[in-house]
């Protein structure tokens, strides 16, 4: 097997297993209260971590670039209670604009 196919196979199997962890091992089973208290915080925590890594994440460094303008514009649109699709489009436009300007 070539190196490329080895990577595709191993990464594919690992990712399928990662995504299946909760649904297959836990499923709809009711969790003890302390555990469900922890699990219910996964949404805000992981969303916050995704915001940070996708805004300033680089190749082993913090990168402050046009994405910041996009997130800022998206945040302003969210504060103005714009619908989600508008927030997403505003963010993309602001990112593209900042990239052209700076």
């Amino acid at each position, binding site marked *: 097997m070539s*190196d*490329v196919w*080895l*990577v*595709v196979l*191993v*990464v*594919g*199997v*690992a*990712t399928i297993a*990662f*995504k*299946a*962890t*909760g*649904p*297959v091992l836990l*499923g*709809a*089973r009711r969790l003890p209260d*302390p555990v469900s208290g922890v*699990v219910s*915080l*996964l*949404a*805000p*925590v*992981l*969303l*916050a*971590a*995704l*915001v*940070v*890594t*996708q*805004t300033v*994440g680089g190749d*082993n*460094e*913090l990168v402050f670039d*046009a*994405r910041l303008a996009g*997130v800022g*514009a*998206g*945040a302003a*649109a*969210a504060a103005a209670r714009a*619908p*989600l*699709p508008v927030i*997403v*489009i505003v*963010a*993309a*436009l602001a*990112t*593209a604009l900042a990239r052209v300007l700076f």
Partner: protein
Amino acid sequence: MSSYALPRPSGARTAVAIAATVWFFGASFGLVAQAAGMGAVAPVVMSATTFAGSAQFAVSSILGASGGTIAAITAAVLLNARYVPISISVASLFHGPRLRRLAESQLIVDESWALSSRGDGRFDRRVLLGAGILLYLAWMSGTIVGVVAGDALGDPTDLGLDGAFPALFLALLLPQLRTRTAVLAAVLGGAIAFVLIPFTPAGTPIVAASAACLLGLRRRA
């Protein structure tokens, strides 16, 4: 904390906007993967099985730079390790036989997961699976087009599409911040990720950030 709530009817339209964005990145992946020497079929098979953009881009860039098989696998596995906590957060949505749960769980991807969050710590199964199918089709068809005719398309970053994802996640984070504990946990999680970015391999900051969930062990504020 805030009364901010998502206007529900925009859910489908948002999924379409995000799918269009994902399609462009799929095409971009198809193009760079082929340029990296992955051939035409392997990138498509990878999109079908891995279905996670950042890890796939990492693989193509490492293989393209002759970075080695082990390095490519390690980077991608670390990047996708976040799907362990992510899949645990939505575990309760999955019912029925194990095989069916296994198949449905493959529709979990950052964006379908984020879109399905309802702001009260719960998730919507129909949104998760519906958006997941749409995004899967977009990612697959984008990859195929990228492999076949990627040169004809522009770079998605020229269109600012890389700024769309963090804005989406931020917009979906806001309605989550209803309790003091949720705010504290989000700030702590974001701070952990921020601090670790320069010092750890990509992917690790998000996994480490999930430790902030342990604040949930405290008594509710």
